[in-house]
C-alpha cells in the first residue's frame, strides 16, 4: 500500500520540482526571500533524487509482490499436499484394516470375508481415482478411468484402465 502510494505521487513531485527549478533559473534567484530559496532548493534536490527514489520504490514493490506470490504458492502447495495425503490415507486405512482382519482370521464366515474383499476392492478403486486426480495436471488434464471386470465380484480390486476422461473432484472423507 505504501509503495503504491509512493509510486503514484512521485511523478507529480518530479513535475513540480522541475517547474520550480525552471522558475528559479528564469528569475533572479538571489533576490528571492530565503524561505522561497529554501523551498526551491528542496524541489531541486527532489528532482535529483526522484529517479533513484522511484526506481527503489518500484523494486521494493516488486520484491513485496514476489514475496507475497511465493508465500501464496507455498501455502497452496501445502494445502494441496495436505489434501492429497488425506485423500490417499483414507482408502489406505480401509484396505489395511480389512487385510489385517482377513490375515488374522477374524472373519469367520464366507459372507464376512466376501464383504471385506469387496471393501478392499472399492477402496483400491478410490485410491486409483485419487492418484489419477493428482496426476491429471501432469498429464494435460486427462485422467485414467477404471472399469470393473466383473461387477459385484470380489475380484473388483482387479480393474483395467480404459479411456481418458475429464477430471472429477475429490471424494469427501
Amino acid at each position, binding site marked *: 500500500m505504501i509503495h503504491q502510494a509512493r509510486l503514484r505521487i512521485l511523478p507529480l513531485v518530479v513535475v513540480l520540482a522541475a517547474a520550480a527549478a525552471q522558475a528559479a533559473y528564469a528569475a533572479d534567484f538571489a533576490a528571492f526571500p530565503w524561505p522561497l530559496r529554501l523551498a526551491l532548493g528542496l524541489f531541486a534536490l527532489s528532482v535529483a533524487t526522484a529517479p533513484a527514489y522511484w526506481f527503489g520504490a518500484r523494486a521494493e514493490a516488486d520484491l513485496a509482490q514476489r514475496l507475497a506470490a511465493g508465500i501464496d504458492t507455498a501455502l497452496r502447495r501445502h494445502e494441496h499436499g*495436505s489434501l492429497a*495425503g*488425506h485423500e490417499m*490415507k*483414507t*482408502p*489406505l*486405512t*480401509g*484396505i*489395511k*484394516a*480389512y487385510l*489385517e*482382519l482377513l490375515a*488374522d482370521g*477374524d472373519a469367520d464366515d464366507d459372507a*464376512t470375508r466376501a464383504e*471385506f474383499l469387496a*471393501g478392499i476392492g*472399492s*477402496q483400491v478403486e478410490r485410491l486409483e481415482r485419487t492418484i489419477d486426480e493428482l496426476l491429471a495436471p501432469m498429464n494435460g488434464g486427462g485422467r485414467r478411468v477404471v472399469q470393473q471386470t466383473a461387477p459385484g465380484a470380489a475380484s473388483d480390486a482387479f480393474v483395467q484402465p480404459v479411456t481418458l476422461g475429464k477430471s472429477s473432484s475429490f471424494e*469427501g*472423507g
Partner: protein
Amino acid sequence: MSASILICDDEIHIVRAVQFKLTRSGYDVRCAADGQQAWREIERCPPDLLITDYQMPNMNGLALIERVRERAETRELPVIVLSAKGFELSLRELADRWGVLQVMDKPFSPRQLLRLVEMALMPRAVLAEN
C-alpha cells in the same frame, strides 16, 4: 457387563473394520457418521470410550471433544482420535487441553487400536472388579 465404545467416523469402511474388531473382542460398540450424530449418542447414553475421526462433516472431532469436555457427565470420558492429518495436529494441545489419550495416524492397524482401547479401559475394568 462389557465396556461401551462409541466410534465416530464418516468413512464407512473404517467404521466397519473397527466395529468388527472391537465387537469381536467383546466390547459393546456403537457407531456415528459425524460429530453431531456422535453427540446425540453421547447425550442419550455416554459411552466408556470415544474413538473419533478428526476431519468430519457437520461437526469435526475437535468440536465434538470440546462439547464432551464442557458437559460434567462426560468431562472425564477417555478419547482416542483417528486422523489422516496427524502431522498437522498439535498433539500436545490435544493431550493437555482436551485430554485426548492418543492420536492414531491413518492408516492404522485395528490390532494396535484394540491394544490401545484395552489400555484405555483397563483402569476402569480393574476398578469395577474391585
